[in-house]
């Protein structure tokens, strides 16, 4: 839930999603859901020469399970807030 919230705060920001098949896609984060499925707009594939079929694609939906990394804009991530929220969530998880 915590990480879902983080992604929600990053909507309309530029991110780079790296998939488990090594494809990297940069685009504007349009939406995210609880499974961390991701919708990207204005996409650009990092290595277009290797993936020419992606050149015509302007936006996409990425299933959360195929994501390896997402590079985030650090200026829009409050690390102190993240750490506090993570501690709070972990304590709540123990109480369950």
């Amino acid at each position, binding site marked *: 839930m915590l990480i879902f919230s*983080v*992604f929600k705060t990053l909507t309309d920001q530029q991110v780079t999603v790296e998939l488990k098949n090594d494809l990297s896609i940069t685009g504007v984060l349009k939406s995210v859901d609880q499974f961390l499925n991701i919708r990207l707009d204005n996409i650009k594939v990092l290595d277009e020469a290797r993936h020419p079929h992606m050149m015509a694609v302007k936006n996409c939906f990425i299933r*959360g399970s195929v994501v390896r990394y997402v590079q*985030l804009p650090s200026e829009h*991530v409050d690390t102190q807030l993240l*750490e506090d929220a993570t501690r709070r*969530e972990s304590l709540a998880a*123990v109480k369950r």
Partner: protein
Amino acid sequence: MEPSSIQEPFDLIRLSLSERVFVKLRGDRELTGILHAYDGHMNLIMSDVEETIMLVEGDQPGVAPTVNVAKRKLDMLFVRGDGVILVSPPSRT
């Protein structure tokens, strides 16, 4: 009994928040970076990350395999938990 206050494995990770950690991932990848967030899936958010990718070449028996190492730096990174094998905090003393 234990000098530490670790009752469950995630305590180890919680005590590493805002510290530099080592992460071993599937696919012969390793990361070091500062841990800012995690959840029960071991999804991670880290900053100031250096990724090391080990590319092993030469699988034939009798031939010493050569390991090529590729490194890159990433500013702020979300790591999906299903790829995580091991997380090691900085050594506590």
